[in-house]
């Protein structure tokens, strides 16, 4: 899902560009897999997000992340979206190195935009903005926190006057996600 738009590091001692690149690639892999499952994959979008998708988060964070699904994923609107295509995705990763040059943590900043169609035929625009804290866990990197995460799903409707107009009644069948 995400091309790496920027990679940076903060060193407390030895610099290690190779380790930073490797860490950033793993962060990219973790978040790409999660966003693919949470937003783009039609199979997982139509049903509840499979448990495996939450493995992007550290085990002890998963319960909290699930309760914040409305901000981290499409939430309850997912099943009502028929098609969705990525229009923009950027990921910037900043890695913290310890004095020996070993990656200790990363902050990833995500911008994700997609557009598609609702099942009723209306256009839909999805916007997600988030920042994630990740740490190495074995061979991979997992999310241990998200200082900020938000998801908006909107339907652009023609409005000749250019002013706000009421939404089609069909949209009323969707309920906003649970408040975090």
């Amino acid at each position: 899902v995400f091309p790496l738009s920027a990679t940076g590091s903060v060193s407390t001692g030895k610099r290690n560009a190779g380790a930073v690149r490797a860490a950033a690639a793993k962060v990219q892999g973790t978040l790409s897999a999660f966003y693919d499952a949470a937003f783009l994959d039609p199979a997982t979008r139509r049903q509840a997000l499979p448990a495996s998708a939450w493995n992007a988060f550290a085990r002890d964070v998963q319960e909290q992340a699930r309760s914040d699904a409305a901000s981290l994923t499409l939430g309850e609107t997912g099943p009502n979206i028929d098609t969705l295509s990525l229009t923009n995705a950027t990921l910037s990763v900043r890695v913290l190195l310890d004095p020996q040059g070993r990656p200790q943590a990363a902050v990833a900043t995500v911008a994700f935009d997609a557009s598609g169609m609702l099942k009723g035929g209306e256009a839909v625009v999805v916007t997600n903005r988030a920042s994630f804290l990740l740490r190495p866990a074995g061979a991979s990197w997992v999310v241990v926190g998200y200082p900020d995460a938000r998801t908006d799903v909107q339907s652009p409707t023609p409005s000749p006057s250019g002013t706000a107009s009421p939404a089609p009644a069909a949209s009323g069948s969707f309920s906003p996600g649970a408040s975090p």
Partner: protein
Amino acid sequence: MRTSRPRSRPSTSGPATRRRRPRVRAGGMAVLVAVMASLASPALRATGRSGPGVPVSMVEIHSAHGASYVPALQGKRPLFILALGSDARPGQSVTKQRSDSIHIIGVDLVRHRATILGFPRDSWVHIPGHGTTKINTAMSLGGPALAVRTVESVTGIRIDFWMLTSFGGLRRMVNGIGGLRVYVPRPMHDRFSGANFRRGIHRFNGPKALAFARDRHDVPGGDLGRSRNQGRLMIAALSKLHRVFDKDPTRIFGWIAVGWRNIRTDLSVRTLLDLAFTASSIPLDHVKNLVVPASVGKVGSASVVFITSAARRIYADMRKDGVVG
């Protein structure tokens, strides 16, 4: 490094170290409004935004703003850090000089509160293995390890970690984080420290922060007032950490790097980061800044500070949950 002493420290990793930030975000209110709007009408809220070309309205179908979850230290017992400031001059060993700034920072990890307890440098105390003398000599006699043991002996509080900086370290740290906004409670005009401030809020660069921290000649209680001002600097740094972290979480790494380069500590970078996250979750009004109750006196010709018996209640209170009150 004091890593071999067997004791249970608050967990710095693993399952019990996470928590939701205890704050209300504007985004949370946005969700509430959206929910109320959807309940009020089956037609969802129209935002009235227009795009390029054909005018459109954006109908909000789903909006969930402001989920925030930051890893923080957690543990059944409180966390205690000894913050030391060395009076080493250029060319001197930072760890082998006197510690003229001495503070216990107690953190209640359960209720996200903290207390900063300062000790005047001239406090007349027992130093293990060295008899009774001024508390600031402990570090010059045995490094940070003896400073820790001395404070533990005086207070009965078990210190988990120590952090030590120098005059230059403080200057560089304050400059490195872009300065601090500090409330100066009364005018300070002291040629020794260079403090020259009107009452009110000031933006301090490194040298000004250092002058503020060092002035003891025209502050109430001398050394006691100075110790309280040093606590004020810590709270100002915490306030800035909150603002920075809320605006751009990636900047916390810059703080860690600036800190790491300018302190000596027995913490790892990883635990320092955990502490920073924990600090970002402690509301400012949950932080107390105290100095041990004491009176000024003489031992021979030396000016000293006698910690009063009232301090025992403070120590006992802090031992329970890390904070006073």
